[in-house]
């Protein structure tokens, strides 16, 4: 079901055929059991990545929370929907088209992307809804990919697009589509090139579960979570600020920048505090103050010097 393997397997890791075959029959039963339980937990493959200096010194959000409390409307609008409905999604084969104002447009196969210099980055994730997590991602800087396609001088923005597969993504079919598809997002080129901005291919030491945006997603830790677009199939370098899904849905509430900012409230709720998922539980659920740029102000505030952050929310 939701499994795919990284492409470089040392011979030492290759399992003898008889064990492999019995494992397969075990997986068949296990997969059926998982579907019955509706847990949808992905049978992810281990990934190796080098440690990185970008590491938050806060307790990690439990893996179970990271993989079952998700906003991924392509699989349904409730938090548990993505983990329950993403079982039929096929993250392989996969490729990402990088095009637009570039010297060398290119379609990257997943194998190529998995061969990039992978790092483990432990980042805070702050959802626009007022909750947050700390997640150990595995990925590589987006700039490493952009370098390969040689953006032209006229390129000012980067536009991203999620896959559209109604037959595998139940949220993309039926009545009451919450959003128009494909989901689209965008960054300014300097934001996209910032060393904190990564394309993630894994979390918690394994390939990305489907519900977290398999096989490859954006992670921009200083912006609200909806900017970190999942299951990317297209990246375009463009001259004008690209349209983005939530801004199209409600421009008054969701801006293009959407930098985490406790001083600028969402029109319908405060952004001053956040609920750290997995901490405290039912009676002791303590809210913590939200930090400007989600705690990454030292690294990214200079990108916005001289800008009115209230107007450019």
């Amino acid at each position, binding site marked *: 079901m939701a499994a795919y393997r990284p492409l470089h397997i040392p011979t030492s890791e290759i399992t003898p055929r008889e064990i492999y075959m019995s494992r397969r029959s075990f997986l068949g039963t296990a997969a059926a059991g998982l579907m019955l339980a509706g847990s949808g937990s992905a049978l992810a493959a281990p990934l190796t990545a080098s440690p990185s200096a970008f590491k938050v010194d806060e307790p990690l959000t439990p893996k*179970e*929370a990271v993989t*079952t*409390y998700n906003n991924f*409307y392509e699989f349904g*609008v409730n*938090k*548990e929907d993505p983990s329950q409905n993403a079982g039929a999604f096929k993250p392989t084969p996969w490729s990402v088209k990088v095009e637009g104002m570039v010297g060398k447009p290119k379609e990257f196969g997943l194998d190529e992307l998995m061969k990039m210099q992978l790092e483990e980055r432990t980042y805070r994730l702050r959802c626009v*809804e007022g*909750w947050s997590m700390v997640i150990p991602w595995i990925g590589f800087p987006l700039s490493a990919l952009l370098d390969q396609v040689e953006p032209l001088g006229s390129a000012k923005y980067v536009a991203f697009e999620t896959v559209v597969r109604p037959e595998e993504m139940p949220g993309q079919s039926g*009545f*009451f589509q*919450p*959003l128009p598809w494909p989901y689209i997002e965008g960054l300014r080129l300097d934001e996209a090139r910032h060393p904190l901005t990564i394309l993630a291919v894994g979390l918690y030491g394994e390939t990305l579960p489907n519900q977290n945006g398999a096989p490859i997603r954006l992670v921009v830790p200083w912006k609200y979570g909806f900017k970190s677009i999942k299951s990317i199939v297209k990246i375009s370098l463009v001259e004008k600020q690209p349209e983005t899904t939530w801004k199209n*849905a409600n421009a008054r509430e969701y801006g293009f920048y959407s930098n985490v900012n406790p001083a600028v*409230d969402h*029109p*319908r*709720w*405060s952004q001053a505090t956040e*609920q750290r*998922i*997995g901490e405290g*539980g*039912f*009676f002791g*659920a*303590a*809210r913590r103050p939200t930090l400007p740029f989600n705690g990454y102000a030292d690294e990214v505030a200079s990108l916005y010097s001289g800008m009115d952050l209230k107007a450019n929310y």
Partner: protein
Amino acid sequence: MVGIPTLPRRYHSASIWALYGIGLCPALWYFYLAATGGLGFNPVKEFEHLLGIWALRFIIATLAITPLRDLLGINWVRYRRALGLLAFYYVLMHFTVYALLDLRLDLGAVGGDIAKRPYITIGFACLLLLIPLAVTSNNWSIRKLQQGWNRLHKLIYLIAAGGAFHYVLAVKSVTFVPFIHVALIALLIAYRPLRRPILNWKRGKPKMAQATR
């Protein structure tokens, strides 16, 4: 009219008490789930939302009593007080969880939300408007207020509309579940001005049938 057996009169009061008991079950069940880790990783929000949705459901049930009797001949008027009070209890629990467990009794934040955020202003206004209805939901008040009681309790239509609006404003996008609740409330409110003409038409029909004979 419809084949629902009538409940013998001697069971009426027991059935009303049973309705209170059953009506409070969702709250107890979700409280148990939330306290034991069964409501996911953001149990406070989840519990808060479930209480709000159940409050709307009891408001819908309260409003449905009259059309049920008018259109289908099912007389459940004896349950309306319990349904209305259950709605009030759920709204009260919804607000209590929000203030106590979500905002940790930070009264500044609660006040700020009520003042600044339209959907919370509306929700809080609905809670306040429900209080006089709950307080006068006894036989003594009905006798004492006479026609005034009927007028006062028409407020439930305003509260229902406010509750639906509160729900629509609170969600990120109106999907199937919010739509169904809001559509039912809209239908039940729309029934109110149509009620007289419909009843007149229903009463008039047999006469006209006779006249043509």
